[in-house]
């Protein structure tokens, strides 16, 4: 990030040093707003999660249902992230590199998941792959695979939501890439696979990773898209967010807050990791 230079300004414009009340007011307002909106909720999550004592907390998060929900959340998000990193990078490459009919539409469509309500996403997936639909029945009869009300549906919903993250993160990197490097590699006799592995991949890896991790962090808390697709079956398709929802609805706030502590901690760790990666890349 570039720093503006307010010092220079005050030196050239105001001769007498004085307290800048307007600037102080702006800063105080902004920081108060951020503190109330973000720090306070975080504080609430951690204190109400641990208020009943460590033992209660431990019991609440080691309930079979809670453990299952957390594991399911992590695995579905991880599978989505891997597929997303592969397909998102391919999409970015194709959009930057090739000229073809419909490319503008494809490029525009990638932001669709940001525009469409997540609950509508879930409903659309149920209507496409649900047990009563043609496709759903086909998968059921041919391979005995259920998509809706199973973890596959959860991964599908997350793939839909996560699509923009990797693509939009890698796309500018491909745009900036100097085409001479891979060409030099070809000229020297390297195969396309070798060139990809040794020349292109190291170049795009940081962007792939930050995009993938952002999508992962976003997926951990997803509720709207999952609640219809997964069907809220404990120990089968219940993710952490859906579990917390159920506990809140059932009036069991202490259990909800205990699992929230774990989920929020994981999300915060991933965010910190992304920030660390971004800082390291911008210095490199």
């Amino acid at each position, binding site marked *: 990030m570039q720093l503006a230079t307010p010092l220079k300004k005050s030196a*050239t414009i105001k001769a007498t040093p004085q307290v800048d009340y307007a600037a102080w007011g702006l*800063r105080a307002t902004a*920081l108060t707003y*951020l503190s109330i909106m973000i720090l306070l909720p975080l504080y609430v999550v951690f204190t109400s999660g641990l208020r009943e004592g460590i033992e209660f907390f431990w019991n609440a998060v080691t309930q079979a249902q809670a453990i299952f929900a957390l594991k399911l959340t992590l695995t579905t998000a991880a599978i989505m992230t891997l597929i997303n990193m592969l397909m998102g990078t391919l999409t970015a490459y194709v959009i930057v590199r090739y000229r073809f009919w419909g490319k503008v539409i494809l490029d525009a469509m990638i932001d669709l998941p940001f525009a469409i309500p997540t609950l509508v996403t879930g409903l659309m997936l149920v*209507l*496409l792959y649900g047990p009563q639909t043609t496709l759903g029945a086909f998968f059921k009869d041919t391979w005995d695979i259920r998509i809706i009300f199973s973890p596959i549906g959860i991964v599908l919903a997350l793939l839909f939501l996560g699509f923009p993250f990797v693509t939009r993160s890698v796309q500018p990197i491909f745009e900036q890439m100097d085409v001479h490097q891979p060409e030099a590699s070809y000229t020297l006799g390297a195969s396309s696979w070798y060139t990809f592995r040794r020349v292109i991949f190291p170049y795009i890896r940081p962007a792939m990773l930050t995009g993938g991790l952002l999508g992962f962090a976003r997926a951990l808390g997803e509720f709207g898209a999952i609640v219809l697709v997964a069907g809220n079956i404990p120990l089968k398709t219940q993710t952490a967010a*859906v579990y917390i929802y159920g506990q809140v609805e059932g009036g069991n706030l202490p259990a909800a807050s205990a699992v929230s502590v774990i989920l929020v901690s994981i*999300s*915060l760790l991933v965010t910190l990791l992304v920030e660390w990666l971004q800082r390291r890349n911008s210095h490199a």
Partner: protein
Amino acid sequence: MPEKSVNSLGGFLLVMVVVGYACLLLIGPIIALINEAFSESIGQIIHSIIQADALEALSLTVVISFFTVIIDGVLGLLVAWVLVRHKFWGRDFFNSLVDIPFVISPVIVGYVMIVLFGRLGWFKFIPIAFTPYAMLLVTVFVTLPFVIREVMPVLASLSNEQEEAAYTLGASRWYSFRRVIFPALRPALMYGLVLSLARSLGEFGAAAVAGGAIQGATENATIYIFRSLHDRNDIGAYSMALLLGIISIVILLLMNILKAKESKGN
């Protein structure tokens, strides 16, 4: 990397794989929704949208989105300004705070509202849990990063020359902000606001938990869809989903127009 036409089998296959994947993932579900909604006549669809409870839910969504966009615009601009232009202790810390709403589960946000403003909450003298005010508050929370993250890089990349020229010519700080800086920020601000709008029109989890999903009081458009599915009012749910879907495609178009404008401006 320069663009080239598809001139090899490998390139052709790559394009086909990507286009096929995107169609399957993004277009397939949309077609399924359109198909299902239009299994009833258009008259039926319109009829179910103009039901009193559907209209009530829609207007709640519109009102909350309206106030969210205004709050996000004003305070987002302010926060972006302070984070870019002011140097102060803890600036990096506050800067990282901004991304947190992206990764906190909406359900947890809603539940925090109950802990804070519920009948037994920390601030029980402000009993706004299970009211539209709580829904507005959580919607502002989940949309908080959009404007800030769009405006900050543009603000940071502005050169000081024009601004300093304005000062030198005797303009006040407010005047030079309004006439010199704000016009440069406008495209990014608009883009951020459109993202906020899209998110607030579709917010479900946080709004449902914080508002309690009370029919006729705190039921927004997405909660209406959820309830209709439970009540076996399928056509009601599909019609509302279709309407929200159409609105989001309009928003998507708007996003692309704004982005094209922004890149032309640079």
